[in-house]
């Protein structure tokens, strides 16, 4: 076997992950398939696609986010990015009324909401999260409280809506993997592919950003530009996953932690796809277990939160014990 080139990303680790995801997908589709086969299959393909898109988006977003914040405990969800997205949705309904919102085509609406998210999250990032970059725990706590603040603000804004408008927004604010609009799914799928492509293109710069802001600037990285690009990608990925199923806080933490462990590399060209594959696989495996094996409905997100919370606690205490 020729010696591996130490200067280039080693993508071999992605192969088993991709195989695992394919296997899971096949199992998910074929398990206990009964007549009417075509109907059930269509249903399952839709669900499969939404699970994969959401898992991949959150996994990739978390890796990028953790590099930009130089902190492996944070996820976009913990800091309240998804809450921010729901808040923006609510605010738009509040400002323009539900009827106007219903009249706008979903694609345009999604783009507008995602653009707002990018702008607001950039402002928050530079104001709050960057300032405390030296003090990791303070930054994490600030992020968490920010998330609570945004969720509070959202439910406050929701109360200002008419009951009928309230219903429109509330649909978006509870994670559910069961009912997903196919048009939204198509938009989300295409966005995901574009965003992942952009993330891979950005990967070498993210590698450099992983050295820390100071050092990265020293070796010639335009750090502010990378933060802008990376954070925009994160916002886009969070927006699409939230638009699909609603907020999922801790999934990204699990996916990213596993990706670092499994790949043992710092190269984003490997880490980002790995986290995406793992995120998708977790959701798929979880949904399969809950729905097919245990016969339970819609409790997956709760369990993911539960386990993710435990992982977070573990990482936090281990880090502090050092």
């Amino acid at each position, binding site marked *: 076997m020729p010696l591996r080139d130490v200067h280039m990303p080693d993508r071999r680790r992605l192969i088993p992950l991709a195989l695992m995801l394919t296997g899971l997908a096949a199992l998910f589709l074929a398990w206990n398939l009964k007549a009417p086969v075509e109907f059930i299959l269509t249903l399952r393909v839709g669900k499969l696609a939404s699970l994969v898109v959401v898992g991949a988006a959150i996994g990739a977003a978390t890796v990028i986010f953790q590099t930009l914040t130089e902190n492996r405990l944070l996820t976009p969800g913990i800091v309240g990015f998804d809450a921010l997205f729901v808040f923006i949705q609510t605010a738009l309904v509040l400002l323009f009324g539900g009827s106007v919102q219903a009249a706008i085509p979903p694609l345009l609406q999604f783009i507008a909401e995602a653009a707002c998210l990018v702008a607001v999250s950039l402002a928050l990032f530079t104001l709050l999260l960057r300032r405390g970059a030296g003090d990791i725990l303070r930054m994490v706590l600030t992020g968490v409280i920010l998330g609570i603040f945004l969720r509070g603000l959202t439910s406050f804004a929701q109360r200002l809506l008419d009951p009928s408008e309230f219903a429109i927004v509330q649909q978006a604010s509870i994670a559910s993997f069961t009912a997903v609009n196919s048009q939204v799914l198509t938009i989300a799928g295409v966005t995901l592919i574009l965003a992942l492509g952009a993330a891979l293109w950005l990967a070498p710069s993210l*590698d450099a950003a992983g050295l820390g802001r100071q050092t990265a600037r*020293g070796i*010639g990285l*335009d750090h502010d530009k990378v933060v802008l690009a990376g954070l925009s990608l994160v916002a886009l990925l969070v927006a699409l996953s939230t638009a699909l199923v609603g907020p999922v806080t801790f999934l990204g933490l699990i996916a990213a932690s596993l990706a670092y462990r499994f790949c043992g590399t*710092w190269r984003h060209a490997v880490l980002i796809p790995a986290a995406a594959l793992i995120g998708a696989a977790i959701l798929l495996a979880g949904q399969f277990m809950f729905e097919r094996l245990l016969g339970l409905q819609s409790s997956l997100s709760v369990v993911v939160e539960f386990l993710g919370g435990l992982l977070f606690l573990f990482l936090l205490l281990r880090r502090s014990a050092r």
Partner: protein
Amino acid sequence: MIRIANLTVMRGTKPVLTDLSLRFGHGGITALIGPNGAGKSTLLHAIAGLLPATAGQVEVEGRDVARIRPEERARLVALLMQSDRVTARLTVEDLVSFGRWTYHKGRPTARDREVIAEALSQFDLEGLASRQIDSLSGGQRQRAFVAMAWAQETPWLLLDEPLAALDPRHVRDLMERLHGMSRPGEGQRSIIIVMHDLPAAARYADRIIAMKDGQIVTTGPRQLKMTGAVLSDLFETGLDVVQVGGGDTVVPA
């Protein structure tokens, strides 16, 4: 050449450097000395274009560092920083390779690989190339970061306390190497070092800049300016420069 004109840098509302003007010619080692809080690190960061000037300007090779694109800047000036906290788990070779980042952007060419190998051998790191950064001792890590800065192949090499975690043997090795590469010849570097190791400064520096409270106290050739009187005044404690075995060193007076 580096030209600094009326440079003022504020941190918050506190001036760290005030109205500072200075020129650096090519070649040799310049030692920046002075008590803690004098503004030495700030000056290095300002020269490297990493801290915005509140007033005044810094020109490297005739170009205003505030206006050069980061990639180009990193080919003119390399800076070794004091804090080297790295979240990612890198090997020494990975780290040194990042010194070439502005050239290869993640896809190292044969030339980049050559420089990386050269940097590893220059700083005695070949045996450690595949070790993880966080498994190294403080001194080994320091050398790895110096090698990264060196690999940037910049005419100007700025080092912020590179001797901090080094034992005497590695202090000597590193300083001799830096001294060697700052002599005239092909690939000559101009080196500016913030140092607290006064004996090392007395032995290896060609020029000194003494700083205190954000201002220059004195500057000039080491032989003329590094005297007991200047040092005692600068550090507010009795110091003397004496000759030992053909070189200068600093002792308490």
